C-alpha cells in the first residue's frame, strides 16, 4: 500500500505530464510525443490509485471488468469514427465526463466514509460544497452536451429553439441552484441533493437549446470548459492534485477556445449563449435583393480559370465537411500543382462546427499542414492571388461585414476573398448562410457561382483540368 504522501507526489507527476501533453500541441511535430505524455500521466494516475487503496479484494475484479468494458467501447469508437463526425464525438465525450463527475459525486455523497469526508448526514461542510459544485457543473455539462450532440448529429434541428420567458426562466433556475446548494449544505438532506442534480440537468438542457448550429464551436468549447470545472470540483472533494490540475487546465483551455471562437464572429460570449442569432435575423435578409444578376458557370469554366491562374487560394467551410469533399479537393489541388500553380488554404477561425474542424479534415485528406493558413496569416495574399475557390463557406467571406454597419455580422473578421482577380463559389443555391444574410460576393463582377454539390463539382473540375 502506497503512503498518502507518496501517492500525492505521483498524482503531481501525472498532473505535470498532462501539462506537457497540452504543451506538445504547440506544433504538429511535438504533438505526438505530447499525446504519449498524456497517456503516461493517465497510466500513472490509475496505477497509483489502485496501489494506494491496496484493497485487492474481489471488488478489484469488478473494477477491472468495468474498466475493460469502457476501454473497449472507447477504442472501438475511436477507430470507427469518421473524421467528419469529430464535433459530435467531442460533444458526446464531454457528456460522459459530465456524467462520470455526477456519478462520482453521488457515490461520495452516499458513502462519504470511503473518501474520508465524514459520515452520511454529517459530511464536512467544505467537502459538501465542493461535491455539490462538481455534481451541478457535471450535470449541466452532461445534459448540455447531449443537446449539442443531438444538434450536431442532425437528430435535433440545428435551428435555435426559443420560447417566451426563456431568459427569466433560466435565470430563475440558476438562482434556485444556488439556493438549493445552500440549503443542502445546512440540512445535509439527501432529497435536496437529488433535486439539485435534477435542476442542474434541466438547466443544461435549457441553456443549449436556443443556440443555433453554426454557434456550436462556441458551445463545444464552453462545454469543454465546464467538464474541466466539474473535474476540478470533484478533485477538491477527493483532495486529489492530479484532478485539480487537470480540471484547471481543461477549464481554462475550453474558456480560451470559446473566447477565440467568439472573437472569430465578433460577438460577445453572452450574445452567443443567449442564443437566437439565426432566427431573429432570418426575415431581414430575405426581403429585397432577390433579383440581382448572378454569373453562374460550370466545371469547365472553373477549370479554365484555374488553369490560367498562377496562384489559387482555397477557402473551405462547413459545406465541405457535409459533402465529404476534402479528398476530392486534394486531388484537384494535386492536379493544379502539377501545372505549377501555387495553392494555399485559408481557414477562418469559425469555419466548421468546432475549433480546428477544417484543419483536421484537410489533414485527413493528406494536405500538408504547412499549406494551410489562418485568417491573419493569409488575408493579405488574396489581393495577389488569381483565383479564390470557396467551397462550403459563406458568411466568413461576406464583404458586408466590412462595409455595412447595419449588418448583423458587421465587424466580424472575414476573409478578403473579393480582392482576388476572380472568385469561384461552390454552393448548392443562393440561399443565405447561417447568419441569414445575403452574401454580396455572389453578385460581384468577378464572381462565378458554381451551383452543385461540393464533392461532385470538385471532381468535375479535376476532370476538366
Amino acid at each position: 500500500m502506497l503512503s498518502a504522501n507518496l501517492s500525492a507526489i505521483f498524482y503531481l507527476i501525472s498532473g505535470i505530464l498532462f501539462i506537457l501533453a497540452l504543451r506538445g500541441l504547440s506544433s504538429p511535430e511535438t504533438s505526438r510525443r505530447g499525446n504519449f505524455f498524456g497517456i503516461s500521466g493517465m497510466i500513472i494516475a490509475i496505477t497509483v490509485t489502485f496501489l494506494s487503496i491496496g484493497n485487492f479484494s474481489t471488488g478489484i475484479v469488478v473494477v477491472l471488468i468495468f474498466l475493460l468494458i469502457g476501454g473497449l467501447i472507447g477504442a472501438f469508437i475511436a477507430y470507427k469514427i469518421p473524421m467528419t463526425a469529430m464535433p459530435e464525438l467531442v460533444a458526446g465525450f464531454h457528456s460522459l465526463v459530465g456524467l462520470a463527475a455526477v456519478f462520482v459525486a453521488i457515490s461520495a455523497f452516499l458513502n462519504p466514509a470511503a473518501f474520508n469526508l465524514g459520515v452520511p448526514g454529517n459530511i464536512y461542510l467544505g467537502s459538501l460544497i465542493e461535491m455539490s459544485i462538481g455534481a451541478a457543473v457535471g450535470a449541466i455539462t452532461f445534459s448540455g452536451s447531449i443537446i449539442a450532440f443531438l444538434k450536431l448529429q442532425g437528430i435535433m434541428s440545428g435551428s435555435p429553439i426559443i420560447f417566451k420567458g426563456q431568459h427569466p426562466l433560466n435565470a430563475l433556475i440558476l438562482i434556485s441552484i444556488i439556493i438549493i446548494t445552500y440549503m443542502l449544505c445546512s440540512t445535509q438532506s439527501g432529497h435536496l441533493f437529488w433535486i439539485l442534480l435534477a435542476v442542474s440537468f434541466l438547466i443544461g438542457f435549457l441553456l443549449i437549446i436556443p443556440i443555433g448550429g453554426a454557434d456550436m464551436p462556441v458551445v463545444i468549447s464552453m462545454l469543454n470548459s465546464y467538464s474541466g470545472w466539474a473535474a476540478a470540483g470533484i478533485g477538491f472533494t477527493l483532495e486529489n492534485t492530479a484532478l485539480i490540475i487537470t480540471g484547471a487546465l481543461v477549464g481554462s483551455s475550453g474558456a480560451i477556445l470559446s473566447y477565440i471562437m467568439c472573437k472569430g464572429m465578433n460577438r460577445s460570449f453572452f450574445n452567443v449563449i443567449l442564443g437566437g442569432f439565426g432566427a431573429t435575423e432570418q426575415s431581414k435578409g430575405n426581403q429585397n435583393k432577390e433579383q440581382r444578376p448572378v454569373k453562374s458557370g460550370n466545371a469547365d469554366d472553373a477549370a479554365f480559370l484555374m488553369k490560367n491562374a498562377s496562384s489559387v487560394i482555397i477557402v473551405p467551410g462547413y459545406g465541405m465537411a457535409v459533402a465529404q469533399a476534402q479528398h476530392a479537393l486534394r486531388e484537384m489541388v494535386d492536379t493544379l500543382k502539377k501545372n505549377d500553380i501555387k495553392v494555399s488554404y485559408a481557414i477562418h477561425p469559425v469555419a466548421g462546427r468546432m475549433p480546428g474542424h477544417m484543419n483536421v479534415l484537410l489533414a485527413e485528406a493528406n494536405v500538408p499542414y504547412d499549406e494551410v493558413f489562418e485568417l491573419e496569416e493569409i488575408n493579405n495574399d488574396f489581393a495577389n492571388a488569381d483565383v479564390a475557390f470557396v467551397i462550403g463557406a459563406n458568411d466568413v467571406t461576406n464583404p458586408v461585414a466590412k462595409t455595412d454597419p447595419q449588418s448583423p455580422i458587421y465587424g466580424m473578421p472575414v476573409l478578403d476573398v473579393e480582392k482576388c482577380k476572380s472568385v469561384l463559389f461552390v454552393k448548392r443555391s443562393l440561399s443565405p448562410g447561417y447568419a441569414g444574410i445575403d452574401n454580396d460576393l455572389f453578385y460581384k463582377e468577378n464572381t462565378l457561382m458554381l451551383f452543385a454539390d461540393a464533392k461532385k463539382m470538385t471532381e468535375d473540375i479535376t476532370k476538366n483540368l
Partner: protein
Amino acid sequence: MEIDPFIFRLSIFILSIFIGYYVVWSVTPSLHTPLMSVTNAISSVIIVGAIIAGLAGNSDSIFNTSSVFGFLAISLAAINIFGGFLVTQRMLAMYKKKKKDK
C-alpha cells in the same frame, strides 16, 4: 496558526489555471480539434474517484448503491480515456509536412 489544507489545494488550482492559460495560447490553431479531444481524455482522470468509489464496498457486499455508481463512472471515464487518447493519436498521425521533393 495553521493554514487549512484547502488553501494549498486552492493555490494549486489557481496556479494551474495560469499554466493552462499560457499553455493553451501556445497551441497552434490547426491543432484545436486534437486539443479538445485530448483535454477530454485527460479530464477523465476523474476515473481515480470512480475507482475509489467502486472499491469502497466491503467484501460481503461489493455492489451497494454507492459502489455501483462508482462502477458506472469507471466505464464512462474509461470510454473517454481510451476513446479520447486513441482518436487524438489518429488525428495527430494525419498531420504531415510537405514532402521534401518539392
